[in-house]
């Protein structure tokens, strides 16, 4: 490749980076701009202020909302890992009557976007008195359609395990549950990592469900809270909103930069949607 071609390719790549990197840059820098400066085109705040970052916590119970999102995402991730790895293992490695039919029952979840069932699910949780609680945001992702992809991925992984490993373990007198926990699960770490990453992000980004189910501010999750930063006249407080958005995005970005290979491969090859 000639030097000129190489320079040209770098120029193209750099230009293409702008719409990918610039918004995040703009989000973070603008969150430190005072109101008067917010629509200036400067790439860097002329007068730095942390006032918007402080206002985030004054205008909303933001710490509580942050905690809500975090604990829900952690519970959903842990629950999905348990449910999906157990089901995936059984469908891949154990023979039992009705296996294929039951697997099809689980797979229907892949066909049905969760938006299709939001009305009956709302009605179900309403009957149980669980509207405006976090239960729908925890139970549905762990047991319903969102976890089906996880089960499918775990099954595909366990199918590739060599049978001799289990034979040997059995000779040593291990029962099924022990083989699963001590042999299969440790080997499944890459698949579990991929499932954990996309499950966490899915829960962290969930928007339609919280908007439908939650009505009390202290119970809001982050995506919903981010849209609520307005002044008394419903005007948007851009720098406050962008501060809150930065706080939501930065921790995930940091983890991404540290573990970018796992993130990229995990997310791309497990088919995260939307």
């Amino acid at each position, binding site marked *: 490749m000639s030097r000129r071609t190489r320079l040209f390719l770098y120029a193209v790549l750099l230009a293409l980076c702008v719409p990918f990197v610039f918004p995040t840059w703009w989000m973070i820098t603008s969150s430190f701009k005072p109101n008067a400066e917010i629509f200036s*085109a400067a790439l860097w705040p002329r007068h730095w202020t942390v006032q918007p970052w402080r206002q985030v916590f004054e205008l909303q119970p933001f710490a509580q909302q942050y905690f809500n999102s975090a604990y829900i995402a952690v519970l959903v991730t842990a629950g999905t890992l348990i449910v999906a790895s157990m089901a995936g293992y059984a469908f891949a490695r154990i023979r039992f009557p009705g296996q294929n039919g039951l697997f099809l*029952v689980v797979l229907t979840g892949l066909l049905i976007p969760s938006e299709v069932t939001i009305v009956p699910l709302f009605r179900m949780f309403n009957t149980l008195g669980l509207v405006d609680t976090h239960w729908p945001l925890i139970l549905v992702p762990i047991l319903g359609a969102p976890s089906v992809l996880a089960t499918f991925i775990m099954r595909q992984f366990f199918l590739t395990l060599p049978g001799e490993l289990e034979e040997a373990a059995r000779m040593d007198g291990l029962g099924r549950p022990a083989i699963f926990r001590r042999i299969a699960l440790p080997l499944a770490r890459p698949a579990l990592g991929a499932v954990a990453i996309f499950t966490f992000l899915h829960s962290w980004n969930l928007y339609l469900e919280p908007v439908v189910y939650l009505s009390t501010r202290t119970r809001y999750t982050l995506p919903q809270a981010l849209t609520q930063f307005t002044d008394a006249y419903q005007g948007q407080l851009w720098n406050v909103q962008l501060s809150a958005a*930065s706080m939501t995005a930065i921790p995930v970005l940091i983890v991404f930069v540290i573990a970018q290979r796992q993130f990229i491969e995990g997310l791309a090859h497990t088919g995260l949607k939307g």
Partner: protein
Amino acid sequence: MSTFWTTRRRDVLTGYLFITPAVAGSVVFVLVPLVLVLWYSLHEWNVLADTFDFVGADNYRALAADPNLPSVLRATALFSFGLVVLNLTLALLLAVLLNQKLRGTTVFRVLFFSPVVVSLLAWTIVWGFLLQDNGGVNSLLHGPNWLRSGGTAMTAVIVVQVFKNVGLNMVLFLAALQGVPHELYEAARTDGASAWTVFRRITLPLISPTILLTSIITVVGSLQVFAQISVLTQGGPGTSTTVLVYYLYQQAFQFHAFGYGSTLSVLLFLIVLALTLLQWQMRKRWVFHES
């Protein structure tokens, strides 16, 4: 140990126990709601008025006569089509660029991928800010009020979504490109084929399974777009960006018409089902090479 609990029987029992949460969850949270949504769609059901009356196919007649429906379907189709075309083209372009023997492509890969992990709402809000009349985009382009003009709102929403997720398809394309055997390229080059011919005759056919896969994932994902519409345009101006899921949300949860909302859910389900069946058909016919 009793003789009844042989290893085989214990295995079967473990199998059933292991799948119980997943199967029960699918029944309670997927299959039963699916049946219920069909049942509800046959009812006139207003939550506020507390009415729930069987009306047969009335909701479906109302759907066919709904003056908003053509516009909603057009917006849904436009969004999906625009998104797929732009997303796949850009993803393929980025993948081809990153597949060159250049130093530092890992860094570019991380940068192009980074919006995927930025929280969806944060990404949408900052673009909403940039696309304001006096926002960052217009300080460069001096364009219209992107999100408030009928001619540009849909394009703006599509573009925001393309940049958010194109990194996923880019990585899939990159893996596919790296899977094309080197000998094929070398053979073509010895035959004196141009770079474009090589791309069209060798690369494209060989990565066609990935093209099909990514277009299906992208189309089905595009039908679920909600947050972006809700934050950027609220379906407007007029109903120009009111896609099916947003319309469903408005009918069911803003106007409290659960029966009609269920009918729209059934419509959404049928569209996804049709697309899935189409994909199976195309897999058999179109794809040149499947590993």
